């Protein structure tokens, strides 16, 4: 299972993050490492760096992890989270510039097919321009 790129979904809303993960899971089953996080440390809408770090750890793959985010804070908090990882891990995690639902599904199907991190990210980002 860990020979596939992992996917992390980060939304301000836990409902959106979980719902997106459900849709991804329906497409690729358990064969792609997948984790989601949503909401801030106080349980409201927002994102939380420590939870993002935990999600990356949960979806960790030696081939890297692609992170799908929704709005501004999810992106900046994900970037902070990546910088706070040990460097040997941080170098293998990317934030995709893609819509969270379409991007996650495109990225996960690409990862399921065995693509590397660069190709997974490209697939996600092409979902935004399709």
């Amino acid at each position, binding site marked *: 299972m860990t020979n596939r790129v992992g996917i992390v979904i980060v939304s301000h809303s836990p409902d959106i993050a979980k719902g997106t993960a459900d849709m991804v899971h329906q497409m690729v089953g358990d064969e792609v490492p997948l984790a989601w996080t949503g909401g*801030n*440390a106080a349980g*409201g809408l927002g994102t*939380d*760096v*420590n939870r993002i770090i935990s999600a990356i750890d949960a979806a960790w793959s030696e081939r890297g992890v692609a992170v799908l985010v929704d709005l501004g*804070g999810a992106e*900046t*908090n994900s970037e902070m989270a990546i910088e706070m990882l040990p460097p040997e891990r941080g170098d293998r995690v990317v934030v995709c510039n893609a819509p969270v639902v379409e991007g996650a599904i495109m990225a996960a199907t690409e990862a399921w097919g065995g693509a590397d991190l660069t190709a997974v990210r490209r697939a996600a980002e092409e979902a935004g321009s399709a």
Partner: protein
Amino acid sequence: MPTLDCRTLERPVIDRQLFERLVVAVARRIIAASDTLSELDRTIGDGDHGINMRRGMEAVLAGREMVLDLAFGQALQAIGHQIVGSVGGASGPLVATWFLTLGRNWPQSGTDLPIDAFEAALQAVKARGRSDVGQKTLIDVLAPVTEAIKSGLACRELGGLANRAAEATKPMLATRGRAAFLGDRSIGHMDPGACSVALMIETAAGLLAKAEERMA
């Protein structure tokens, strides 16, 4: 009138007691203003800026004993970590990046104000937000304040300058941050992030100016 400026922010000029007063005063100022900040954010954003910043400042207040004895640069970084772990909104990573970068670049010795560290912190916030001046964000306060620090403006002048810079975000069109979704409707309202940062600077610079006057 004593004009000792902010050039000697190095300890022991900022001793433990003054550092604690700075931390407490800045945090309480933001906590007291949190409803106003959320109200500004309700107008042009998602309405959670005040509560997010409040949570961050409560974390800083609660954790201050852990940072007060650290070297100043490390203390600033520790505050950055407390903010990033607690705020949860878009301003969390931006404000935290400022503290982390300032702390990381703070020299271990010397009595001159490390203007390079302030410049590095500003550039890091710009990079983190992929933003620059004129986009109706906290950068519109941080940039002129950084310039003023570099040019040696006295502490007692900094608060006014920061407030005027926040005020100047009102007529701006937001092109970054949540307010950018509003387009023209963002015009006429102060950016909440700019307001927060101005309040923090006004509070800190005001306290430092008073401390300087006492020492002079």
